[in-house]
Structures are given as C-alpha cells and as structure tokens.
C-alpha cells in the first residue's frame, strides 16, 4: 500500500494542485509529522504508527495564509478534520484528503467505529467491520462498581495532560483543566473525578474516537471507555455522531429543544 500511496502522491504533487503533503516521515527509525514539499522526499514517507494528523493540519493551516495541502488521512483523521472545520479551526477547502484505510489489527486496537475515510485513495477498506463494544462491560456494572472502578483508575492519573495534548479536538488556547477554579493546582492525583469529568464533557459531541488520549496516557487509564459511552449518549439523546456530516452542529450548543 505504501508504494502505491507514494506513486499517488507523486502524481498529486506533479499536478501542482497542492503546495505540499502532510504525512508522516520516517527518520532514524522514528516517525514524525512532516510537510513534504518535494517529490524526492516521498521515499521517507511512512504510514505507521498512528498519529493525529488533523492537529498537524490545524497548526499548519494557521501558519500559512492561503496555500493548499494534501493530507494523508485515516478514518479518524478525516472525522477530526470535519469536527475541526465545524469549529472553524481548519478550512477544508485548503485540504486535499488522501484517504487510507486501517488494517484489521489497527482497527481492532482502536476499537475504531469506522477504520477508513469516506473516500479511500489507495488500499482496500475492511469489509463488514464491526467494532468491539467497549462500553458493554461498563454499562452492565452497578453504580457502586462503576464508582469503585473509576476511583481506582483515575487515581493513577498524574495529570501529565497527555490525553489533552494528544487530542486532535483540543484546540483551545487556555484550557479549563488548568483553571484552578475547577482543578486544584499542585495536587496529585487530581481530585476525583472533576478533571476527567470536565474533559469527558468537553468532548461530548466532539470526540471522534481516535483513541489518541488513551494511547498517550502513561497510566493506562481506559479513557476511551468514558468517551465512547458519551459518544453513544450523544447519538441516543440527539442522534448526533461527531465526525460525520459536515453540516450538523453539536446539539449541545444549538438553539433547538431536545426531542
């Protein structure tokens, strides 16, 4: 797939439609996000590991006033870009999305709801993919079990802000998680459960289920469980699935009455 992609990107570059390509570059065995501006560099392009490409696009578009870029996107990256666009953080007109699908292993690891973008440029998307229901075990718990579970999990937090920093949907300049009104400064672990509840609530209608937060967490807190449960709630309560539909606004901020 990698070779096929490189060929595709070379053609795209040659067309002159884009000023560069946002993708991962392999350097000394490490991958880093990179803006490929020259076809010769494409040899170093790599696809793994997963990386929140939408955040890269957001920062890059912010820097440069008018240029158009191509971006190599997985399903989650595309969802993130859509949500960022709704919040005016990226201009989709300035991006050419080059969609790639995830393989089964990757998809399973993320419990991804849709491990492929809307248009797959290269590779073949998984057929009949059904994500694992990671919320199931938690929904079945009694209230006190849930409380004990999260008490145990969230006590591991060392407030490194890795979950927030990795999150492609976190674009605020000031973060409420650093506001001493809500989250006491100089206290570890953060008071249960305000830090994680605020973060989860802020992601309601926003989380696109990329799993970056959980991967970033050094304490292995199953953050995606909370986010997934809220994603389900948003769908159940309002029929809203973040990352889909370019026009749908997060119902939490619209004027309509709840049905």
């Amino acid at each position: 797939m990698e070779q096929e992609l490189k060929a595709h990107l070379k053609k795209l570059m040659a067309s002159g439609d884009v000023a560069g390509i946002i993708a991962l570059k392999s350097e000394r065995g490490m991958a880093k996000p990179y803006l490929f501006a020259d076809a010769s560099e494409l040899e170093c392009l790599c696809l793994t590991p997963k990386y929140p490409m939408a955040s890269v696009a957001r920062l890059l578009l912010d820097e440069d006033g008018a240029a158009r870029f191509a971006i190599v996107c997985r399903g989650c990256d595309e969802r993130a870009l859509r949500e960022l666009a709704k919040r005016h953080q990226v201009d989709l007109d300035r991006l050419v999305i080059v969609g790639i699908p995830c393989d089964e292993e990757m998809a399973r690891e993320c419990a991804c709801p849709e491990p492929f973008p809307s248009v797959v440029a290269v590779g073949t998307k998984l057929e009949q993919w059904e994500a694992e229901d990671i919320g199931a075990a938690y929904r079945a718990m009694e209230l006190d079990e849930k409380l004990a579970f999260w008490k145990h999990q969230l006590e591991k937090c060392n407030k490194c802000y890795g979950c927030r920093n990795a999150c492609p949907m976190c674009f605020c300049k000031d973060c409420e998680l650093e506001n001493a009104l809500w989250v006491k400064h100089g206290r570890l672990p953060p008071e249960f459960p305000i830090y994680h509840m605020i973060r989860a609530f802020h992601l309601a209608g926003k989380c696109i289920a990329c799993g970056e937060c959980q991967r970033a967490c050094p304490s292995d807190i199953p953050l995606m469980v909370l986010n997934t449960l809220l994603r389900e709630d948003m769908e159940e309560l309002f029929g809203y699935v973040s990352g889909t539909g370019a026009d749908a606004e997060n119902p939490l901020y619209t004027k309509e009455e709840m049905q």
Partner: protein
Amino acid sequence: MAETWNPKIVGFLCNWCCYAGADMAGTSRMKYPPNIRIIRVMCSSRINAEMVIKAFQMGADAVFIGGCHPGDCHYVDGNYRTQKRIAVLRRLLEHLGIDPRRLRLEWVSAAEGEKFAQTMDEFAKEVAELGPSPLAALQREVL
C-alpha cells in the same frame, strides 16, 4: 461525624422563572425542607458543566437546576441548552457511578410557587433516600 446527616442541595435558579417561582413559594408561605441553597443566575444556561461537577466534587449531595418552561425562556432558547447539557451530564454522572437522580432539572414558572415547594419536598426526600453522595464521603476523606 456526630451530626445527623441532612442532604445538601445546591440550586441554580434562573432569575426570571424558577427564582421568581421560589420567591412566590415564599410570599405564599408554602413550606418545604431547608436543604437547598439557592444560587441565582440570569439564565439556567449560564450554568456550565464545570459548575455542576464542582458542586458534586465539593460534596453536594444533589444539584438542582431550575429554568423557564419550554417556549418561555426569558432569553428565547437558553433553557433548551440547559436541558441538553443536563441530559448529558446525568449520563456522565451515571457512567462514573454517581446516581443521576442527584442532578435534577425542573421547569418552574414565576407563578408556580406551589410547584417549586412540591419539587423541593420531593427532591429532598429522594436525595435523603439516596443517602450521602459518595463524592461527599471522598471529599471528607481528603479534608
């Protein structure tokens, strides 16, 4: 703690409807249990998730939010955002193991003193049955 436990309810009431309804309960001398501590805001939609979570975090046994009836919001549609925000917050509380009944949203108009008093009565009873909030106990441990 030797003191008998009384549920602590933090109430966020919009100025135009529910707060006025609570005033009406007062002017009509209707009686209800003294558990609620009312904080006045102009619109229920002023109350963000952080404030509700903070109240629970600090040991509130329950949080009550009172706004205008659908269609009657003084600010046109603020109450609809409150409604949606609270619906999601209740789910979130439940996911973390906190009984969502501890967070209650009611529409009370400026004329519904009786409804306000009744709601307070019911809610105080309900919270008393639920017992102290588990977060309140944790808060005391920390202190």
